[in-house]
């Protein structure tokens, strides 16, 4: 799955660690999701969407 996490994070001037703390996950999780090596579960995807106040499909899209 493709995602816009890195762009959204950069727009807010957040580091991976900042985003990880807001999502209550490890920095490695953020890194893996951003680089497309790991697709988050539906509950985590909803948390990400809620944090950026956007619908899930505005952040994640199929390859």
């Amino acid at each position, binding site marked *: 799955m493709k995602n816009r996490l890195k762009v959204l994070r950069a727009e807010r001037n957040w580091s991976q660690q900042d985003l990880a703390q807001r999502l209550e996950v*490890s*920095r490695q999780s953020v890194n893996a999701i951003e680089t497309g090596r790991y697709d988050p579960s539906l509950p985590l995807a909803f948390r990400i969407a809620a944090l950026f106040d956007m619908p899930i499909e505005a952040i994640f899209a199929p390859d």
Partner: protein
Amino acid sequence: MTAHRTRHAGRSRWFWVGLMFASFGVIAALRITDAIGETTGFILMACAMLLIVPLTRAGLAHQRTTGHLSPAVARYTRRFMIASLGYMLGLGIAITLSERMELSGVGAFAIALLPVLPIFAMIWTMARYLIEEDDEFLRHRATMASLAGLGLVLAAGSFWGFLETFGVVPHVDAWWTFPVWAIGMGIAQCWMSWRDRAGTES
């Protein structure tokens, strides 16, 4: 500052690993050359095994700097350290007893349990980690590493078993399954860590 701390934590971790294995090597060499006796060798090995305590602390510090340290990881590391110390102690006592007396029946069963109970504790520790880890990516990594270890045990065990049946290789004791599984898991963890480091960072 963070990079400096990371490098420092990494150096500390490998320092303790090196010191522990160097100690094991020196003690084994002294034992093989009969420079020290069984009891002295066991005591020295037990002392060298205590290096796992600073190694664990350095490992936790390293995990903290790389973002891998969750409360579940910290609990897992401490539980595994205690089980490892118990294994070393149980193994030493079992070997010492088996070399000094004829073992059979219930006695042999009981002595075999000495190193095996800590191994059961290690397996329980790993199961608890998978249950307690809230971070789904870290849980996914641990699951994949466990499966890689399982794959290595099944592949190596099946291949070796047939080679043994055909008389090509010598017999290998079944207790090797756990170390081989742990080696497979460790290799998978190292590979995934390397892949993570190669990923984009900002």
